[in-house]
């Protein structure tokens, strides 16, 4: 067991424990804070996968914007009563069953993959960040999805402002 495996196990434990807390704790602010811990663990995984750009973007976008937005929304819609009563609906055993089924199903599919699961990553080329940039803006690669994503973001921003605006 080498150092990267130790780091993987630690961050996997962080991700799974905090993800479980996200879906179980009653106080929604705590759930949002545990979500941040999960996202941080995922950022560590990106570093392990040598996708440094994605790791940093994960922190900037998810922790800096999305998680903060969740905390804001929880504060804006807070009712004291909601912290005391159970936060699950009456169908939670069914939900548990469905998600356990999904887990078993995915694990089954992963086991049945045609390629070797113990394959080891090849060394990364020096200019992988530049390759990512080129792929994002080259017409032969992904410039169209990239632009569509930016239009989607703009539309979402306008829509969010319009929907949440206090029309008086």
């Amino acid at each position: 067991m080498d150092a990267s495996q130790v780091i993987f196990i630690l961050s996997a434990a962080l991700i799974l424990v905090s993800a479980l807390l996200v879906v179980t704790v009653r106080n929604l602010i705590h759930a949002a804070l545990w979500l941040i811990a999960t996202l941080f663990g995922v950022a560590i995984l990106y570093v392990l996968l040598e996708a440094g750009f994605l790791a940093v973007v994960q922190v900037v976008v998810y922790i800096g914007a999305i998680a903060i937005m969740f905390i804001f929304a929880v504060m804006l819609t807070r009712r004291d009563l909601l912290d005391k009563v159970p936060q699950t609906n009456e169908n939670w055993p069914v939900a548990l069953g469905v998600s356990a089924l999904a887990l078993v199903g995915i694990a089954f599919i992963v086991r049945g993959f045609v390629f070797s699961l113990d394959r080891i990553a090849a060394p990364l080329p020096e200019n992988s960040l530049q390759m990512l940039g080129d792929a994002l803006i080259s017409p032969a690669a992904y410039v169209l999805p990239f632009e569509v994503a930016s239009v989607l973001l703009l539309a979402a921003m306008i829509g969010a402002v319009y929907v949440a605006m206090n029309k008086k």
Partner: protein
Amino acid sequence: MEFWVDPIKVIFEWLMLTLTGWGLSGELAVVIVDLLGIIALIMGAMLLDIMLVWVERKVVARFQGRLGPNRVGPWGLFQPFPDIIKLIIKEDTTPVGADKLVFNLAPILSLASVIFLWAVLPLASTIVGVDLNVGLLYLVAAGAIGTLSIIMAGWSSNNKYALLGAYRMVANMVSYEIPMVVALLIPTVLSGTMSLKGITLAQSNVWFVVLSPLGALLFLIAAIAELGRSPFDLNEGESEIVSGFHIEYSGMKFGLFYAGELLHAFTFGAFIGVMFFGGWQWPLPWGEKYALVGIFNVLAKGMFFYWVIMWIKYTVPRIRIDHMLAFNWKFLTPLAFVLLMVTAIVHALFMNMAPWLYTLAMFLANVLVGWVTLEILRSNARKQRVAVEAPQPVAQH
């Protein structure tokens, strides 16, 4: 002689020899020496922080026509130590109804978000914690953790003023992040890299402040907003919301917020020096070769911009929150995007021309953008003045 060129390498090799001489394995020795290096860097930053307390108090006093601390030591130089002792022996309170874990975690995260920045700060050509190829984005990511610490502090304090301060601060930081990222993209375009070391090296002939004075100014404004210093200190707003998000903190927990704020300002000053003013290569000319001179250069620039930030802080009054957001969304963000586009176009057009022509074109493009901006602002101001001065109907109903 070699020690003066690259002290870190000499110390590293000596430590490695000592540790492996004790019978440790090579990998473990590397981990231990790296940990020692990290601790040394953090200790250095914190020692600097202690001195920043004195600098801040002295400079504020001079701006306000006072003498400032002058009792403890020469020129009050040892004043921070009584301050620290006072903070440590103060009662450490946690308000009733506070969320204890979050409440105590927030000041730590606040200081940590600043210490994170030192990991990528290139102090000299050979002394840089880690030279990330996404260094500039890392700067923004560390800022995101600072935002988080403030909203945690504001929410967990169980105090309406703290929550108001946190709301304001988060609105401030999230919106000023946009012009900041765009301003960071300008050195990226100019140097073709996001690594801070690469950016410093790209400025060996001409600083980026000459190529993009407007970009440097935009970054300075966005950095002050990100720091939450006056005129953007709505998060504290002592006169309205009694110091905002850290109202409930006492003793060393408040001290961590305070130390974090000072060190944050200094660190951003150092980053401005690195990104727009040539980093370790100036004012002393041997910065490239001798590491210690490089460190002196970076810290001197950091101190200068720290002073500039303080100068603005103690000169300009606080602005109102709607003005602040309008300033960002209606002025700073569009200007930053226009400037980025102009910079990219000029860069693409003049990339292969003579260096002096490239510099001139870049500088003139900046001047042009700045001039057009000022003209638009002036005509807007005129319109508003005319609207105010226009005769009002006497009875509207």
